[in-house]
């Protein structure tokens, strides 16, 4: 069988890279990138802060403050690069791991904790940030994104949609149907596939025996593979893909080839299915280190800058932690809120019965002085 090892591909030719792991700038005629040191410093700051936030969220889970946490460790460049390519009017459909993209959309990081703490299913207004709720059912959001893009078409809007999904998700029927609808209606949607090489314990080779970006070619639209640990390449390629969509040229698939440096979630134990050595190899391709190297070597930033960012990260972490600990608990009766826009007697009946039931305890505890 034609199985392709990830490594070969990541170093192969059909692969857009503008900043090497060593921090060297590379040019790519198809993806020219004009960027000022100031902008690169901004990207560094984004990368460092979302990583710091992610570390804090992981710690909060360990301490029992969150039920579970899906770390983005290692995928910062893919998310910040693509997230910073977006225009305000563009709509984003994330999975459950796009904390970095959420950051770019101006969602207060602590809001991301609410779903994982279990107080609600997402603490932000999708319309206000043009950032949909996290979707946990793998692949389902790719169809929502395509439909939303079809709506933009009808509105004559000049915006585009970007939808995130993983290497495992690429196997779901929904994702392939999304490719079909998007191509059929030429919808302005960018499919951003973060290939972190693992679907929990299942390696990407189980999902596809050829590089995933090629999937798009079989559906009749462009697909490219970019170094997902290279924030500059992710920025340049996503900009081009969004422009492609805005120009009425239809869908575009970006495969950001990266690596999930952490566990799938805090419930997962990667030692059961992958070698520690794999992680070591990928640490050498760290998405943040290479930007730091570029900035330092080029004299675009000195230690005072890096220290400042680190300090800012610690403040952010402290703020997030405080917000998490002081997060209000939902009311039991919130269970019955917003099931329907138009309400339902069935829900009202259950709610009334539940309120009587709760009241019953109050009485009990008075009467029987709570002896049950």
């Amino acid at each position: 069988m034609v199985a392709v090892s990830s490594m070969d591909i990541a170093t192969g030719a059909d692969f857009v890279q503008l900043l090497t792991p060593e921090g060297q700038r590379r040019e790519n005629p198809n993806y020219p990138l004009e960027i000022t040191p100031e902008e690169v410093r901004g990207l560094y700051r984004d990368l460092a802060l979302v990583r710091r936030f992610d570390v804090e969220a992981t710690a909060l889970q360990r301490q029992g403050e969150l039920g579970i946490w899906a770390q983005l460790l290692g995928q910062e460049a893919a998310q910040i690069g693509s997230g910073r390519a977006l225009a305000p009017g563009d709509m984003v459909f994330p999975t459950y791991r796009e904390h970095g993209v959420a950051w770019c959309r101006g969602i207060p990081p602590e809001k991301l904790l609410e779903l994982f703490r279990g107080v609600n299913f997402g603490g932000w207004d999708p319309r206000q940030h043009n950032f949909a709720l996290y979707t946990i059912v793998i692949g389902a959001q790719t169809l929502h994104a395509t439909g939303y893009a079809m709506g933009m078409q009808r509105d004559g809007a000049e915006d585009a949609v970007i939808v995130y999904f993983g290497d495992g998700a690429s196997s779901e029927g929904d994702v392939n149907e999304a490719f079909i609808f998007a191509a059929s209606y030429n919808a302005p949607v960018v499919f951003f596939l973060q290939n972190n090489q693992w679907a929990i314990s299942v390696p990407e080779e189980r999902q596809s025996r050829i590089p995933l970006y090629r999937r798009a070619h079989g559906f009749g639209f462009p697909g490219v593979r970019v170094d997902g640990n290279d924030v500059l390449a992710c920025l340049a390629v996503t900009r081009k893909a969004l422009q492609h969509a805005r120009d009425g040229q239809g869908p575009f698939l970006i495969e950001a080839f990266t690596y999930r440096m952490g566990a799938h979630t805090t419930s997962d134990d990667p030692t059961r299915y992958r070698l520690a050595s794999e992680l070591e190899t990928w640490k050498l391709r760290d998405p943040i280190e290479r930007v730091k190297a570029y900035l330092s070597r080029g004299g675009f930033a000195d230690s005072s800058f890096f220290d400042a960012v680190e300090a800012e990260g610690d403040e952010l972490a402290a703020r997030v932690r405080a917000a998490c600990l002081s997060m209000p608990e939902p009311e039991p009766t919130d269970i019955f809120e917003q099931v329907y826009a138009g309400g339902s007697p069935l829900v009202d009946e259950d709610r009334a019965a539940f309120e009587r039931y709760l009241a019953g305890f109050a009485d009990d505890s008075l009467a029987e002085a709570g002896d049950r």
Partner: protein
Amino acid sequence: MAGVAIARALNMGLRKALEADSKVIIMGEDVGKLGGVFRVTDGLQKDFGEDRVMDTPLAESGIIGTAVGLAMRGYRPVCEIQFDGFVFPAYDQIVNQLAKLHYRSQGLVKMPVVVRIPFGGGIGAVEHHSESPEALFAHVAGLKVVACSNAADAYTMIQQAVASDDPVVFFEPKRRYWERAEFDPSASLAEAVPLHSARVVRPGRDVTVLAYGPTVKTALDAAKVAADEGHELEVVDVRSLSPVDWDTICDSVRRTGRCVTVHEAQVFLGVGAELAARVTEKCFYSLEAPVLRVGGFATPYPPSRMEEHFLPDLDRVLEAVDRSLAY
């Protein structure tokens, strides 16, 4: 106006909905030039264009999934599922996404999507074209589920469903598509009976018969025969399967003291199970007999040459009525 068939009434209702709100769009397989295999969307693409009456690729999950996205963008999609048996590829998008998004977003994201499904048997079709999956949707919180039984209701209810800000699974009685009835298409929607109300379609004092969709006619036919035999059946068209209008139903059962449910879906865990369980709970002291259920057998829908035996008919309703009266 003169007698109009149910399929035509739905077409008229959809046309009104398209006229009333430019955000309403129709999507599905063969809904365009063909006008749907039952012609329910006949002529609509011609008059409203391909952007508003859209033939889709052949993928049900894709139809509902993109409808969800269109709804997020402010559109009001009306999706046609060609036949009852073909809704299942879309079941995940309906149950996990369409039904839950309003709740998950704490009311910030509305899902005004209608999923039209021609349902039930009796047309001599091949497999998968005669299913009655309504209970599989009525059990799902976040969805509203209705079934029309006559042209007048079809015309009104489809407009009410499109106007609803909640997702509505709309069941159409396939084998009754060509049954005609007179109604006034100019009557105001505002004054129509609410979408989620049941209706007594024939009063009677002896036994309450609960039916919906295609079996309402069956129940009415049974009531005629029963009358000759001296039994007055009160036939209630349940109309809304989620939520259910318990007041109208229980008011009837309290008067008759007896109740029989009729649907084509298999009895085991069919809608009749909920009707029986809750009616018994709400009307316990009024019941002279257990609620009896008439419906499909605990088998897949059979080949069409046997379907007349599978489908609850007048005689099976009367047999249940007799058993109820025998208590």
